[in-house]
């Protein structure tokens, strides 16, 4: 039976705030399909966000939902997961939210390896506040605070996550919803901290300022800027230079935080 999205949406909160052409809705649907596929009970799912366009997601979803302060979603999510490890905790954040103001929480949540899935809606811009440059704005790309083009190098969300110790790291593009579904399901199945760098075009602010054209034009760009990690071996170095791999980029077995903590509790009991 095909899934009914309205089973998971708060219908009365529609219409959503996202602009026509925005990729965020595609990511939300992918998250919902993943939750549906995994048959998670709605009562057991918590969706946490910070501030920004992406962070409006929880309000539309019929789960336990929490819209926190800018950059701090992972800190709140950590408290929820640690206090009640039975809950499935999903965090949604933008590139500014997770890489700039929330950067410290990002790297330490990766290090702790709590069983939380983070989906970064990465549109390389601060959309909610009107198109300012973000930590993932490409060098040379414009934002309202980078009118001559960004002079700084951006963060690579996946490289950051890998370096900081996330046990599952993937990149997915909104233009390929099937691949995104696979990646998000795998991220949620991973017993540990999972990061999905989900690309989503912002036509209103990034697209217009950088003359990248319509949503579909922007998606074409994304396609040109990326390659499938599975094909990486077959590609010559020059074919990959300056491009971003897409797919599951990193997965390792590491003890999950709550499991480690439970072992500690048990060992203290044994000592008594």
């Amino acid at each position, binding site marked *: 039976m095909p899934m009914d999205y309205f089973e998971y949406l708060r219908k009365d*909160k529609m219409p959503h705030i996202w602009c026509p052409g925005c990729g965020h809705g595609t990511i939300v649907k992918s998250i919902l399909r993943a939750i549906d596929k995994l048959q998670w009970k*709605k*009562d*057991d799912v*918590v969706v*946490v966000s910070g501030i920004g366009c992406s962070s409006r997601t*929880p*309000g539309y979803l*019929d*789960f*336990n*939902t*929490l*819209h*926190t*302060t800018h950059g*701090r979603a*992972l*800190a*709140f*999510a*950590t*408290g*929820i*997961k*640690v*206090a*009640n490890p*039975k*809950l499935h905790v999903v965090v949604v954040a933008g590139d500014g939210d997770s890489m700039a103001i929330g950067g*410290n*929480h990002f*790297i*330490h949540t990766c290090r702790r390896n709590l069983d939380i899935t983070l989906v970064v809606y990465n549109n390389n811009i601060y959309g909610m506040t009107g198109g300012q440059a973000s930590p993932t704005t490409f060098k040379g790309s414009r934002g309202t605070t980078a009118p001559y083009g960004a002079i700084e190098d951006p963060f690579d969300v996946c490289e950051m996550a890998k370096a900081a110790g996330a046990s599952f790291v993937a990149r997915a593009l909104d233009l390929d919803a099937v691949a995104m579904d696979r990646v998000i399901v795998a991220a949620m199945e991973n017993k540990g901290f999972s990061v999905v760098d989900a690309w989503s075009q912002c036509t209103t602010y990034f697209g217009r300022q950088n003359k990248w054209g319509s949503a579909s034009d922007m998606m074409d760009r994304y396609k040109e800027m990326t390659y499938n990690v599975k094909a990486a071996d077959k590609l010559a170095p020059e074919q990959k230079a300056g491009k971003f791999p897409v797919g599951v980029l990193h997965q390792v077995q590491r003890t999950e935080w709550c499991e480690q*903590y439970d072992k*500690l*509790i048990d060992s*203290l009991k044994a000592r008594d």
Partner: protein
Amino acid sequence: MSEHAKRVRFLSGNEACSLGALAAGCRFFGGYPISPSSEIAEFLSGHLPKIGGKFIQMEDEIASIGAILGASLAGAKSMTATSGPGLSLMQENLGFGMMAEIPCVVVDVMRGGPSTGNPTGPSQSDVMALRWGTHGDHPVVVVCPASIKEVYYGTIDCFNYAEMMRTPVVLAMDEITAHMREKIEIPAPEELHIEYRKKPAFKPGESYFPYQPGPDLVPVMADYGQGIRYHVTGLNHDKTGFPTGNPEVMEEGNRRLLEKIERNKEKLIKYEEYKTSDADVLVVAYGSTARSAKRAVDDARERGVKAGLFRPVTLYPIPDKALEAAASKAKRVIVPEMNLGQYIMIVERVLGHNVKLSGVNLVNGEPIQPSKILSAIVGE
């Protein structure tokens, strides 16, 4: 060893606070090391896992308060402990806790400021930061103990107030109270009064409004995972918890946050009066400074000056009626504090300009000596 002897302990304030938290039912601590509060994190990192509670060292103070708010939403009584610089970092999320009405306890062991200031010296310089630190109009409950026994019971009070009012509550100690040691008899659990947040009964199909005020203006609170799915935000929201831009609803919501404390303040206010009934000179002091003040009052009486002490244990909500009554015969009021005049502004507001008001202030990392307060009382 007799039962009594077993329960008598010689504790520091930070230890008494930790034990009080455990007795109050604290089962989650998220914190970041900072002098002079670190012993609380250290103590609880050893004790919480032994009773199945959770301890997590966070990456900074912003994360610490985020984590305890998250844990509270998941149903755990939670706490963090910090000092001035950490308190500054926590202010935004403290406001989130007040706005979203999430109970939790923040311990602030006051050290000298501003900035890094005097990490290991005593101070009472956070008194206004605790009242007005986070932006916007907001409800504040702050308990300020002056003895080890009061730290223990004050911590339990903080948890009780947080659960009763659905709001973050601060235990404000100064470094002296946190680090001095005194004898305390630890009560049996059944001797304690412990409050728990009101939870909605689970009835499928029935609507739950997470911000529908009860008769005491406090809404009942469901745990995440309890079976009632709802939304929490720091945006202005209506009774359903969802954002609103409706001017009437916003006005009502913002006012209710303050009104819920105002209406219940008699349940939250504690104070001590010492020789105030005939006092010509009233000293208003809190925390460890009140101990010096008490000695100064006795010394002044020996010299024939009718002095008295009013000691707010609850700094906020302000014990205004009691303070007014205590000062009713006073010709002069003296407010000693280890800052450059913070709570004196509150006292001035309560007592008006009809009384001669002066401060005794010290910000050099030393406690205020009784002799200094005595000089102010006898007018030397």
